[in-house]
């Protein structure tokens, strides 16, 4: 057959067609592979399962090395909604012992964006919290029947003592606010709530690790991506050693049974808090596990407010425990010398009257502390504030500055959340409240810790520690040591009010005298030189509050304590005995047989009935 050259040209049509198609394919390939980035993401979200590996939360010990808080494994049932294939819901419910209604409820709650703000089809979501070890065992065996579900091992807290709930705190699920404020958190994480769990969250939580797993088209995990080369191991949280002496804390809580109030004990030398009792307290283990929500609601509704940390938050009228601060200011300001005497005829009478108790007159500073003379401090206050040739406002603000230096009026800066600041007024406050017409005389009750001033038990205890140290203190703190970390400098530096050491010596002597032969006689301990000061604070809620501050031994003090019992009457009635028992317990490790009766009386005493608060 002859070659037809006209037809041969058709090879270009066919060849051209091939080249055209190839060009279209190259363009398409370019668009898919180089142009669009979304396919890479699709492939990654197909293949990679980024599973968080949770670090063990740091353990918490007390100052004597007793383990207070440790971890217990808990198991959350998680799922990535997109990966979930249909499964036998009934079988699942049977495994985890759930009714089908509860399951539906949980499912709906998980998908509800209002209840679960972090919901997304593509990220792991928590279906069930904290299933038991046994349920976990059964589920693990049958997990393959529920494609898309997996179990996330977490840690829950376990407490060795039922005490110090206010100090230790607990952990809870993160809130929407937590998620927003800290990118560390993912929905379903836990975070510290209250106590050191909250304030030292960043130390305790550690660093989350991540495991990059590969899952196949059926959702089965097929091993680690590149043998785990891109994984990140979790870093365990740091262990905390508290300055708390758990035995002392527990003892304090026992003494405060049936009472409302607080005990704060500080080691003066270091500023370490030895005990921080808020009564009534609560067992921290109430707030773990599945029952947390119910128990939390109960605690919130309790009329005695166990969640309210009175030791840190409550602003109480300091009453006569305030007198040492006044003596110090007057001495420093030269208003008085240790030998200055003021008259007291059953009180301060200068247009108004502040009552006092029977003791000799005139009286000097130390005996005035010994007998808790109101008139002495009223005169001193009047003479300072209303000093001739000075302005009231200037003098009062000077007074206020001393108070602030001594740790009143502002937060001390303890490493616990929710510290209160008490209240120390300044001149502007009175200018406003009294419309400019005021003098030292008209606000005289401030000088005896009444009136407008308020202080937290922690601030009062800190004052006591400052006297014990004769003029300085370290910011009280609850954590003695964070594993592999240096303690914050603010807890190591000495803070010195601008008051001479010798004046503190005078005050300490006065407080020693109060124990030897004054209002604090009940605080005397055999073989230990105790110093103290009582306080009886009038308040608008009923019976007087009973307060006491004390430190011991007189020389080289080891403990400074503040006891505050609401509506319990005279300072000597409850404050003094409880404070002395705390000091004795801490210093000797036991209570002398002669004082066992007192101990028992204190433990059994109930002043809660006179608080006026009724339990519903």
């Amino acid at each position, binding site marked *: 057959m002859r070659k037809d050259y006209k037809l041969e040209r*058709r090879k270009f049509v066919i060849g051209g067609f*091939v080249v055209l198609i190839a060009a279209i*394919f190259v363009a398409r390939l370019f668009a898919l592979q*180089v142009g669009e980035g979304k396919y890479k993401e699709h492939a990654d979200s197909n293949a990679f399962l980024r599973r968080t590996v949770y670090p063990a939360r740091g353990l918490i010990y007390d100052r004597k090395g007793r383990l207070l808080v440790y971890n217990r494994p808990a198991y959350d049932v998680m799922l990535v909604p997109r990966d979930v294939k249909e499964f036998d819901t009934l079988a699942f419910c049977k495994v985890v012992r759930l009714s089908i209604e509860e399951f539906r409820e949980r499912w709906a709650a998980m998908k509800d964006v209002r209840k679960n703000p972090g919901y997304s089809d593509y990220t792991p979501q928590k279906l069930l919290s904290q299933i038991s070890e046994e349920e976990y065992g059964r589920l693990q065996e049958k997990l393959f029947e529920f494609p898309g579900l997996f179990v996330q091992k977490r840690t829950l807290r376990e407490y060795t003592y039922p005490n110090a709930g206010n100090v230790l705190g607990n952990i809870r699920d993160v809130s929407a606010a937590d998620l927003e404020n800290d990118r560390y958190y993912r929905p379903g994480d836990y975070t510290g709530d209250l106590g050191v769990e909250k304030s030292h969250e960043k130390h305790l939580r550690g660093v989350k690790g991540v495991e990059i797993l*590969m899952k196949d088209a059926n959702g089965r995990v097929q091993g680690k991506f590149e043998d785990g080369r891109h994984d990140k191991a979790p870093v365990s949280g740091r262990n905390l050693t508290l300055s708390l002496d758990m035995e002392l804390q527990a003892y304090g809580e026992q003494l405060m049974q049936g009472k409302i109030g607080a005990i704060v004990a500080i080691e003066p030398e270091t500023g370490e808090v030895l005990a921080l009792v808020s009564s009534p307290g609560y067992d921290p283990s109430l707030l773990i596990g599945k029952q947390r929500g119910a128990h939390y609601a109960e605690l919130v509704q309790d009329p005695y407010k166990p969640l309210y940390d009175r030791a840190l938050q409550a602003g109480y009228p300091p009453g006569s425990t305030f007198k040492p601060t006044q003596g110090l200011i007057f001495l420093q300001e030269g208003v008085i010398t240790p030998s200055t005497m003021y008259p007291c005829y059953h009180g301060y009478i200068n247009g108004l009257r502040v009552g006092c108790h029977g003791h000799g007159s005139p009286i000097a500073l130390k005996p005035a502390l010994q007998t808790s003379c109101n008139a002495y401090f009223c005169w001193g206050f009047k003479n300072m504030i209303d000093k001739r040739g000075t302005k009231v406002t200037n003098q009062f603000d000077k007074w206020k500055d001393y108070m602030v230096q001594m740790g009143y009026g502002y937060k001390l800066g303890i490493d616990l959340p929710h510290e209160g600041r008490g209240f120390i007024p300044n001149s502007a406050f009175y200018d406003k409240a009294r419309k400019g017409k005021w003098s030292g005389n008209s606000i005289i009750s401030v000088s005896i810790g009444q009136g407008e001033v308020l202080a937290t038990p922690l601030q009062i205890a800190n004052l006591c520690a400052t006297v014990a140290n004769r003029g300085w203190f370290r910011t009280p703190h609850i954590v003695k040591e964070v594993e592999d970390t240096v303690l914050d400098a603010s807890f190591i530096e000495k803070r010195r009010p601008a008051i001479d050491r010798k004046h503190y010596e005078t005050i300490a002597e006065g407080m020693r005298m109060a124990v030897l032969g004054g209002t604090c006689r009940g605080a005397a301990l055999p073989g230990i030189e105790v110093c103290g000061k009582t306080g009886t604070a009038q308040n608008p809620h009923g019976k007087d509050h009973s307060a006491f501050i004390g430190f011991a031994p007189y020389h080289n003090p080891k403990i400074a304590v503040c006891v505050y019992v609401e509506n319990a009457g005279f300072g000597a009635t409850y404050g003094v005995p409880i404070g002395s028992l705390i000091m004795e317990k801490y210093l000797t490790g036991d209570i002398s047989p002669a004082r066992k009766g007192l101990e028992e009386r204190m433990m059994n005493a109930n002043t809660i009935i006179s608080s006026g608060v009724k339990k519903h």
Partner: protein
Amino acid sequence: MQTLSSAAGSKNTDTGVSVFRSLDWFTVGLYLLLVVGGAISIYAASYDFDNASMFDMSEFSGKQFMWIGISLLVGLSLLLIDSRLYEAYAYPIYGVVLLLLVITIFIAPDIKGSRSWLVFGPISLQPAEFGKFATALALAKLFDSYNFNLNGKKSDYMRALIIIFLPVMLILMQKETGSALVYFSLFFVLYREGMSGLVLCAVLGAITYFVVAVKYTEPLLLGIPAGEFAVFLIISLVFLGMLAFYCRDFIIARNVILGFLASGAIVGTLAAFGIIVNGKVFFLSLLGAGCSYVAIVMFRYKIQKFVITIATVVLSVGFLFSVNYVFGHVLQPHQQMRIKVALGIVEDLRGVGYNVNQSKIAIGSGGLTGKGFLNGTQTKLKYVPEQHTDFIFCTIGEEEGFAGSVTVLTLFVALILRIIHLAERQRNAFGRVYAYCVASFLIFHVCINIGMVMGLCPVIGIPLPFFSYGGSALLGFTILLFILLRIDAARNERI
């Protein structure tokens, strides 16, 4: 017959040497690159976390290497046979393969709805894969027969079509639609051998009409779907274009154009007054009037060349009306779905669209240079079903990226263009037609397979030649190619 075989026998030793001297080693090289690349890709596609060797016989890649070995042996044997025997036995071979296809319909077990596999113990073969070279041989033989003229006698045309469609029917009866469609690519051969270009244009036009009419179904103007409107518009334009092309003095075309414009203006004015004319009626009457006018002119002046024009319009409109029927009633639901997915009408990511979507993700995630051999997550984690067979190309796309994909594509284009080149250097119609058959089959397979993997055309289950896992396909394509190589090697042996 006796003398022929003895003559061939005596010459065997000579050809045995000379065949390697005149063999087209370029094609052989491309072939080897493709099959080895294929086997390596199969290893990657079936690779999982238990790292077995590439040559492990329990692995797909190991088996594929075995099939490559067998194919090479078969290919070598084919080279050693006298090329004249292929021509001489073309019809018998065709007959035997047809018989095999018939037998298969009856004895093949039902595998996923198709009866196309013959099972011999551990080995399964798909006779449809051997239909290609047999049909190519028969068609080549037919075109080479004395006095054959495609455009001369209608019976010659019929014979060619019968040779093509006999295997199509048999394969359709095996429920292997994809493999049957492949034979339509032989229209390229008919085109090369003289079939009117209009047929190709008609096929292209039909595909365009189909796609446009099926894809754009939302109502647009004059109450008819946008797709149909567009098709009517295209038909009108083609009509006018053909008139203008065939009519030297332009008067007829001008009259029709003026008529169309006037009608359009009237309908537009009516529409402005709120009277909507049904679009279908409008276009039909317009085209009808146009065709009638042309027919009248044609009869009066005895101008025959407008026959094609009128036929085009009538067939086009007829096709348009049958599209919806064909799509809705003739095609199986899964076929409709595949077409809808390819046209982007539906996504159906959990059903028909799943494969294509995952395949696109695999290819798209490869980027410029790919994730590296055995590092494709889509591949390794089995997100693309059938990846070692029909979807093998996405392994290249994911692990070797744009660079690798274009390389493979280039190899195929080079092979096809080389075969066209071989075809044109044959000295007789037998060699040329056979070579064009090979090229056509490859064009169809490569276009449809790679197009489907990238989501450009509907999913049709046909393998990527030389690449996809499967002994029958590899053997079938090897035979197809090596017979061509043998025929080409002998092009200088005889005049």
